[in-house]
């Protein structure tokens, strides 16, 4: 597959990049690693007139100590470089989530900000133009139908960014820069349950930094995919526990690849916070995820199967959290 024609701009700094994107009125796309964008261009899923190269912009680089002992990660950092950073290696869950993205080849090109912006996916839309045009357009491609869930009146494509549920569980926030300046936004509020408009980036806005607060606790991540390497997950789960290993005071468990945004599994959390992390409560909490997931759509795998996958992953994740020695910092 060949790429369609486009203009290519190399801004010298973040301000120029934001200006260029804003001036295009939605007709330019930011190019970081390109591992997803270039595929979507080849598939003719997006057709920007110009690409604005943001890889290497100094404002998007570096891993620094953040406020209060946290981490301040440049959104343009390569996923492969982050895996080699000692402070990220010390955050077991985040390290595992980054490592779950694509293959090593993909992580050698892809960036953290790019993964967080990964468009939602489904088995109808994320195909070549020839495949798609064999049927009428869908909600995502400006039609009025869903070929995946025929009864759906909206697009319910999946958010499959592996780092998203983990960073939501860690309570991360984003520093965004747009034409109207800089703003901070909790990552949980960055996403919304809408397959077409899955995030709240304003036109011309870019993720500049990802801020991970210091967490005096343990983190873990689990994913099930058809293959360990490369594939998007049937589901993934991320967790952070603070307090005694068997009696956490705080717990956040977040699932990925189950909706158009990462989903907090609050029933499971509440059950563990009430009764502690024992083999029996782990089983009960895993079962309780059914209530959190609500209606799971039949994307890539049947809904019943997906719920069983989440159940199994949560049981393993909670056992990880109960036994790991890690002190996330």
């Amino acid at each position, binding site marked *: *597959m060949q790429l369609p*024609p486009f203009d290519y701009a190399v801004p010298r700094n973040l301000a120029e990049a934001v200006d260029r994107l804003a001036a295009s009125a939605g007709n330019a796309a930011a*190019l970081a690693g390109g591992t997803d964008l270039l*595929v979507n261009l080849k598939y003719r899923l997006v057709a920007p007139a110009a690409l604005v190269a943001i890889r290497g912009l100094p404002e998007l680089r570096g891993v620094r100590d953040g406020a209060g002992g946290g981490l301040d990660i440049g959104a343009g950092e390569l996923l492969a470089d982050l895996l080699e950073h000692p402070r990220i290696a010390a955050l077991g869950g985040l390290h595992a989530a980054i490592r779950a993205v694509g293959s*090593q*080849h*993909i992580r*050698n090109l892809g960036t953290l900000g790019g993964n967080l912006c990964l468009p939602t996916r489904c088995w109808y839309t994320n195909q070549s133009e020839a495949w798609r045009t064999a049927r009428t357009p869908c909600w995502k491609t400006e039609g009025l139908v869903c070929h995946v869930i025929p009864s759906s009146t909206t697009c319910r494509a999946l958010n499959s960014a592996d780092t998203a549920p983990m960073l939501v569980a860690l309570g991360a926030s984003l520093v965004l820069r747009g034409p109207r300046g800089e703003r901070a936004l909790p990552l949980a509020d960055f996403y919304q349950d809408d397959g077409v408009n899955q995030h709240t980036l304003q036109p011309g806005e870019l993720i500049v930094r990802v801020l991970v607060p210091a967490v005096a606790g343990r983190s873990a991540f689990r994913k099930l995919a058809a293959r360990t*390497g490369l594939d998007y997950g049937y589901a993934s789960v991320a967790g952070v526990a603070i307090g005694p290993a068997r009696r956490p005071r705080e717990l956040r468990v977040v699932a990925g690849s189950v909706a158009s945004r990462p989903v907090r599994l609050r029933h499971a959390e509440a059950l563990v916070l009430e009764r502690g992390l024992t083999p029996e409560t782990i089983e009960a909490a895993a079962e309780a995820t059914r209530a959190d997931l609500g209606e799971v759509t039949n994307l890539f795998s049947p809904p019943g199967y997906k719920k069983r996958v989440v159940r199994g992953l949560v049981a393993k994740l909670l056992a990880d959290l109960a036994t790991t020695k890690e002190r996330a910092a």
Partner: protein
Amino acid sequence: MTHRQFITLTVNGDRREVVVTPEMLLLDVLRDGFGLTGTKRGCTSGACGVCTVQGDDGRAVLSCLSLAIQWDGRSVTTIEGVAGPEGLHPVQQAFLEFGAVQCGYCTPGLVMTVKALLDRTPAADAAAIDEALAGAICRCTGHIKVKEAARQAVLRLQAAAQEQAHGPAQG
């Protein structure tokens, strides 16, 4: 309307100015511009790894997901640049000895993947080899012989490094 422009690209030490348009892939420039057809075109969506080359940071890079224009002023190594004047690279030699080749189409990508891994991690263990090879796929014959060859290349490279440090082994 897209614009033609010159970029400077060094491939296997050969520095050239080439004309590109923004939508040209690194893969296209290597194959059609430099005539280096060892780098293959496969899925063109980052899933198969046959287009793998080695970037100037030593990492394995997918040339089907890189715009040529992004490589202006930089250098890459392709399969044609792996063997030295003294003969095959230890990774190539190991692939040959272990029969880690069937139809051969994926072989350049697999060799570049293993070479990039061992350049950065000379003592790569079996798990690291598995992880690297997850992004480069052989459709004919599977990965067992490829992994055996990669482990053999690790041993060869370690022996060579030891010899360099301590002189040839005695007895």
